[in-house]
C-alpha cells in the first residue's frame, strides 16, 4: 500500500482527490492542501497548552452560584457533582464527572500521547492511535454538556428570593478549554501517524515541496508513477446496483454547471 506522499502526490482531505506534488489548492473542491502541514504539531501543542491553562481556573472558580431561602452556595464542577451524589442521584453525578473531568483529562493525555508518538515513536499500533484520534475528535464536543447545563439552570431557576441560580466564572473557562482542545485535536494531522511506517524515499521527499508550479523551468518533465502502486479499492456490502445513484453524474446532467 502506498501513500500519496510516497507517490509524489498531494491528497485533498476534504474531497479525497489527489494532485501532483506541490499543488496548493485542490482543483476539485477549492480547499487548501498540503502533503503534510509542517506546523501541525506546533499548532497541536500550542492549542493544547492554552486548553490546559483554561482547564485549571475552570476547576478552581465556582461553576454555579445557588441562592435559596436558607442557603447560598457556590459549587465548583467536582464539588457540585459530589454533592449531587450525596443527595442520591449518583447517575447524574457520574454523567457530569465523566463529561467534565474524565473526558477533558483523557483528551489532554491522548492528544499529548499522539503528538509524542509522532516525534519519538510509539509502542501502540498506528491503527490503535488512529482510533484514539477519532474518539478524541468525536467525544470532545460532548464536554460542552456541563456549560449547557449551567446555561439552562441559570435561565430557568429565576424564582426571586426563593431560589435563583447564577452562572459562575468557571463556565467561561471551561467552555474555552473545550474549544481549544477541540481545535488542538483538529490540528493534529492523522496522516503523520502512518508516515512512521514507511518514510518517503529521499527523491520524492524533495518533490514534496517544490514550490509554486510556475517557478519551474519550462522543459522539466515530471515522471511520476501516477497510478502505479495504487491498490484497487475494495467495496463491501450488498450490491444494490439496480437502484438509482444518490446523485446523477455531472456529465449526464440536463444543463451544465453554472
Amino acid at each position: 500500500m502506498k501513500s500519496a506522499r510516497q507517490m509524489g502526490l498531494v491528497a485533498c482531505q476534504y474531497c479525497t482527490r489527489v494532485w501532483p506534488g506541490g499543488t496548493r489548492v485542490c482543483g476539485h473542491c477549492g480547499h487548501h492542501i498540503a502533503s503534510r502541514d509542517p506546523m501541525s504539531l506546533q499548532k497541536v501543542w500550542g492549542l493544547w497548552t492554552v486548553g490546559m491553562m483554561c482547564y485549571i481556573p475552570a476547576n478552581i472558580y465556582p461553576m454555579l452560584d445557588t441562592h435559596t431561602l436558607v442557603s447560598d452556595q457556590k459549587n465548583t464542577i467536582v464539588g457540585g457533582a459530589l454533592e449531587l451524589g450525596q443527595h442520591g442521584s449518583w447517575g447524574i453525578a457520574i454523567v457530569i464527572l465523566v463529561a467534565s473531568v474524565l473526558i477533558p483529562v483523557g483528551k489532554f493525555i491522548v492528544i499529548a500521547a499522539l503528538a509524542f508518538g509522532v516525534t519519538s515513536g510509539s509502542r501502540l499500533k498506528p491503527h490503535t492511535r488512529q482510533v484514539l484520534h477519532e474518539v478524541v475528535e468525536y467525544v470532545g464536543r460532548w464536554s460542552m454538556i456541563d456549560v449547557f447545563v449551567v446555561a439552562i439552570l441559570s435561565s430557568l431557576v429565576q424564582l426571586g428570593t426563593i431560589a435563583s441560580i447564577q452562572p459562575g466564572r468557571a463556565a467561561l473557562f471551561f467552555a474555552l478549554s473545550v474549544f481549544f482542545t477541540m481545535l488542538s485535536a483538529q490540528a493534529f494531522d492523522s496522516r503523520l501517524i502512518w508516515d512512521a511506517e514507511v518514510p518517503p524515499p529521499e527523491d520524492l521527499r524533495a518533490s514534496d515541496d517544490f514550490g509554486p508550479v510556475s517557478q519551474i523551468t519550462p522543459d522539466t518533465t515530471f515522471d511520476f508513477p501516477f497510478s502505479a502502486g495504487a491498490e484497487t479499492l475494495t467495496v463491501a456490502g450488498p450490491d444494490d446496483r439496480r437502484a438509482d445513484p444518490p446523485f446523477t453524474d455531472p456529465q449526464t446532467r440536463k444543463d451544465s454547471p453554472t
Partner: protein
Amino acid sequence: MTSDVTLSDLSQPATRAGASAHASPTRSAADLAALIACPRCDAVFRMVEPANNQRAICNRCHHVLVAPRLRAGKRIIAVQLAILILLVAASAYPFLSISTKGLKHSSSILDAALAFTSDGALAALSFVLAGLIVFIPAARAILSIYVLAPLTLDRGPFRGAAFAFRLSEHLRPWSMAEIFAIGCAVALIKVADLATVSFGPAFWMFSLLVLLVVVQENLACRYSIWKALGA
C-alpha cells in the same frame, strides 16, 4: 500505468478561480481523477464506485471512504428541512418550566443561550452558546439545502456551492444542538429536588432533533456529494 506530465500541462493558467493549474483535462489529470486518497492515512487507491448501500473502506486504516445511499440527496434535504423547522419552532417555545410555592418560571432555548448576559465577562459566552445551539445548526441546514437542492433536481450546482459545502463541513463539529438536548435532561434532574419541573413543547422538538441529526450524519457521503458537484 505510467504517464508523463510535462510542464506545459502543469503551467497552463488556472481554469477557474481558486483552482490550481493542474485542473487541466490532460491524460495525467484523468489518471489522477481515477485515484482516491484516504484523508486519514494518505493511502492511495484506484477508485471503484461502490453501489448504493455498499461501502468502500480504506484497507490500511479502515476509514469509511465512500458510502452512497439510495436517493441520499432528497432524504438529506428532507431531514435538514425538518431540522430547520424544529430549530425555529423550538427557539420560540419554552422547553422547561419550574414552579415552586406559587412561583413559576419557564425558559426558551434563546433564554438559556443568553443566560450569561447578566455578567459582563460572561456575556461573550452567551453569543457563542446561541451560535452553537441554534445558529450554526440552522446555517448547516440552509447550506446543505443550498448545495443539494439543485443536484437532486438534476441541475448544475448553484454558484458557490463548493464553498457552501466546505463551510458546512467546517461547521460540523461546532453544531451542538444534540448536546444541548442531553444537557436539558441533566439540568432537569439537577433541579428536580429544588422545584417542580415540567417539559415544554420545545423539549420534545429538541429530542426529535437528536434523532434527526443522527439520521442525517448516516446519510451524508462526502465523496458522492463532491462528485456530484463536479469539477
